[in-house]
C-alpha cells in the first residue's frame, strides 16, 4: 500500500472513530434528556390526576377546570390506575398490583413517595398520595411517541451527517496526504534523474528547515560525498594506470631500442639493468597496492602483540639511516614516562613500522632532508607521536584528500613517490583505533600527530 493511501486511511479511521464516539454521546444525552422530560410530564399528570380524582371535593371547580385546560391533551396509550391502601399500608387488591407492576417500582413508591420506570416502550410514573379519604398509590403509564420520533429523527440526522463527514474526511485526508508527500515525491523524482553522468546535480533546498528540508540537505550532502568518492575513484584509477604504465613503457622502450639492431654485450647488460630498475619500481608499486588492499579489505587476522612504540620508531630510524644517510631525523624521547607500560600499544609491529616509516620518509622527502623532529609523549590513556618537518607543506585544499590513495598534493609533482605512503599509514593507525591528524602550512612545514590508545585503554 502506498504511503499516501496509508496516511489517508489512518486519518479517516481516526476521524471516524472520534465522530462515532461523538455521535454516540450526543444520542445518549439526547435520549436521557427526552426520557427525563417525559417522566416530568408523567409526574405532573399523575399529580393532577391525584388532585382531580381524589381531591375533587377539596378543590374549587375553577381550579379543576384550569388544571384540565392546561393538560387537555392526553398522551398516547395513557392509563391511570389508583390503588387504595388500608390502615396497615397494605394495598387492597394486592394481587392486581403485583401482577401488573414491578415490585421494585412499587416498593420505591412506598418508600420514597414517587418512582419512575420504563418497560419496553411504556413509561410508568407513580406517587404515594395521602388524602382525607385515605392513602393511595396512583400510577400513570403512557408511550412517548413524540420522544421516540425525535430520537428516530436524530438517529437519521446523525447517520446522514456521519456518511457525509466520512466522505469529506476521506477527500480531505487524501488531499492532505498528497500535499504532505508531494515534496517527497518531487525529491524522489529528482533523485531518480541523478546518475553517474550528472552527479553534480543537486536538489533544490527549501528555505524553511523542516523535516523535508533536512531530508533534502541530507540527500545533497550524500551526493557531495558520492561525487567526491567518484572523483577520487576515478583519480585513483587514472593515477594507478599512469604509474603502472610508466615503468612498462620504459621497459618496452628499452627492449625495442635494444632489438633494433645488433648490440654489444655491455649494451645489453645496460639495457637489462635499466629494465631491472623499472621492474623494481613496478614491483614496489604493486606491493604498495597489495598492502593498501590488505589494510582495506583484510584488516582481520593480523597477529597482535604488545608493541613498544619507542622501539618501533628507533628501528624505523635505523632503517631510514641506511636507506637515506642524509636524513636529519632527531628523536625527542626526553618526556618518556618512567612506567614503560604506558608506551606499549596492542597492535601489529610490522604494520606500525610501515606506518611510521612512510610518515618519516615523507617528512624527509618533502623537506629535502631538512630537520625532522619526532617526539613521543605519554598521556593517561594513550600516547601521542608528533612528527614535524620544515618541508614544502600541503596546500589547504589538498589536506582533505591527502589520505586518498594516489592523491598527491598540488605542490608535490616534482618529488618522487606514488601517493600511497600516507594513505597506508592512515589506514594502519585507524586499524589500531588511533587517530592521525595533519597541520600543514605551505612553505612552512607539516606537523603530523598520531594518537594511539595504550594497552590499558
Amino acid at each position, binding site marked *: 500500500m502506498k504511503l499516501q493511501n496509508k496516511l489517508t486511511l489512518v486519518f479517516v479511521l481516526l476521524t471516524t472513530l472520534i465522530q462515532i464516539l461523538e455521535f454516540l454521546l450526543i444520542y445518549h444525552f439526547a435520549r436521557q434528556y427526552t426520557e427525563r422530560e417525559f417522566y416530568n410530564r408523567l409526574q405532573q399528570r399523575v399529580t393532577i390526576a391525584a388532585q382531580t380524582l381524589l381531591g375533587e371535593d377539596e378543590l374549587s371547580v375553577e381550579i379543576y377546570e384550569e388544571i384540565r385546560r392546561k393538560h387537555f391533551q392526553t398522551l398516547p396509550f395513557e392509563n391511570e390506575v389508583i390503588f387504595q391502601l388500608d390502615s396497615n399500608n397494605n394495598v387492597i387488591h394486592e394481587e392486581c398490583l403485583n401482577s401488573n407492576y414491578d415490585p421494585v417500582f412499587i416498593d420505591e413508591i412506598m418508600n420514597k413517595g414517587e418512582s419512575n420506570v420504563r418497560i419496553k416502550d411504556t413509561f410508568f410514573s407513580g406517587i404515594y398520595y395521602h388524602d382525607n379519604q385515605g392513602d393511595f398509590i396512583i400510577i400513570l403509564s403512557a408511550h412517548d411517541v413524540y420522544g421516540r420520533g425525535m430520537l428516530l429523527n436524530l438517529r437519521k440526522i446523525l447517520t446522514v451527517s456521519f456518511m457525509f463527514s466520512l466522505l469529506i474526511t476521506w477527500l480531505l485526508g487524501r488531499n492532505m496526504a498528497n500535499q504532505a508527500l508531494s515534496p517527497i515525491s518531487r525529491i524522489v523524482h529528482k533523485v531518480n534523474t541523478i546518475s553517474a553522468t550528472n552527479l553534480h546535480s543537486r536538489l533544490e533546498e527549501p528555505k524553511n528547515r523542516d523535516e523535508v528540508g533536512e531530508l533534502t540537505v541530507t540527500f545533497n550532502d550524500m551526493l557531495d560525498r558520492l561525487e567526491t568518492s567518484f572523483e577520487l575513484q576515478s583519480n585513483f584509477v587514472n593515477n594507478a594506470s599512469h604509474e603502472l604504465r610508466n615503468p612498462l613503457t620504459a621497459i618496452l622502450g628499452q627492449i625495442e631500442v635494444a632489438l633494433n639492431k645488433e648490440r654489444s654485450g655491455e649494451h645489453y647488460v645496460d639495457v637489462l639493468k635499466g629494465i631491472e630498475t623499472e621492474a623494481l619500481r613496478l614491483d614496489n608499486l604493486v606491493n604498495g597496492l597489495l598492502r593498501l588492499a590488505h589494510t582495506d579489505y583484510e*584488516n*582481520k*587476522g*593480523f597477529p*597482535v602483540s604488545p608493541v613498544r612504540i619507542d622501539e618501533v620508531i628507533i628501528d624505523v630510524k635505523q632503517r631510514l639511516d641506511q636507506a637515506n644517510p642524509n636524513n636529519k631525523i632527531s628523536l625527542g624521547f626526553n*618526556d618518556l614516562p618512567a612506567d614503560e607500560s604506558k608506551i606499549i600499544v*596492542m*597492535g*601489529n609491529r610490522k604494520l606500525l613500522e610501515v606506518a611510521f616509516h612512510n610518515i618519516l620518509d615523507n617528512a624527509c622527502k618533502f623537506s629535502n632532508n631538512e630537520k625532522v623532529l619526532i*617526539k613521543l*609523549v605519554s*598521556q*593517561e*590513556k*594513550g600516547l*601521542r607521536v*608528533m612528527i*614535524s618537518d*620544515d618541508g614544502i*607543506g600541503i596546500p*589547504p585544499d589538498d*589536506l582533505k584528500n591527502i589520505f586518498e590513495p594516489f592523491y598527491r598534493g598540488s605542490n608535490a609533482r616534482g618529488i618522487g613517490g606514488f601517493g600511497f605512503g600516507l594513505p597506508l599509514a592512515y589506514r594502519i593507525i585507524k*586499524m*589500531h*583505533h*588511533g*587517530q592521525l*591528524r*595533519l*597541520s*600543514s*602550512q605551505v612553505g*612552512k*612545514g*607539516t*606537523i603530523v*600527530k598520531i*594518537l594511539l*590508545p595504550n594497552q590499558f*585503554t
Partner: protein
Amino acid sequence: MEKILIPSDFSNQSLQLIEYAVLNHPNKVLDIVLVHGYSMPVNYWDQINFSQKAVIQNLTDEGFMEQLDILLLEHDSEINTIKIELFLGTNNLAFKRFVEQHKIVSAIIPTERLGNFNRKGSFDPTSYIVKCIDNTLEVCLSENEFDISNLQFSISDLF
C-alpha cells in the same frame, strides 16, 4: 619571544590552532594567549564576586587542560607559555586595549568559526581579532576532535 593570540572555545579541536602558530613562527619561542569572550555579569552581587580564574575553571575541563600540558611537552622548544584569558569587553576599543595590554603581535584564527561558544556568557572573540589585529592568519582546521576519550581499542577488531 612573540605573543600570539588564539581564539578558543575550550574544545580540543581549537588547540590545533596552536600547532599552526608553531608552524607559522619557525625558529621562535612563542607565548600563546588563548582568548575566550565572556560577558561580565549584569547583577551587582555577581560583579563583585566575579573571578576570571573561577570562570575559566568552570568553562574548561580536565581533558582540555591535559591537552594543553601535552602540547607544551610536544612543543617545549617552540612554546614558552600558554595562558588563558577572558575578554570581557563589548567593543573594538576594549579589544584594542586588551591586545595592547597583553602585547600581542599576531593572531591565528580558524577559517570556519569555532562552534562551542554556547555556554552562558560565552562569545566568540574572532570578529574583534579580525578587526583589531593586522597580522592575523586564517587556517583550516581538521574536522575531527583529537581526543583519546573517543578511542576504544578492541583486540577482537584486529582478528
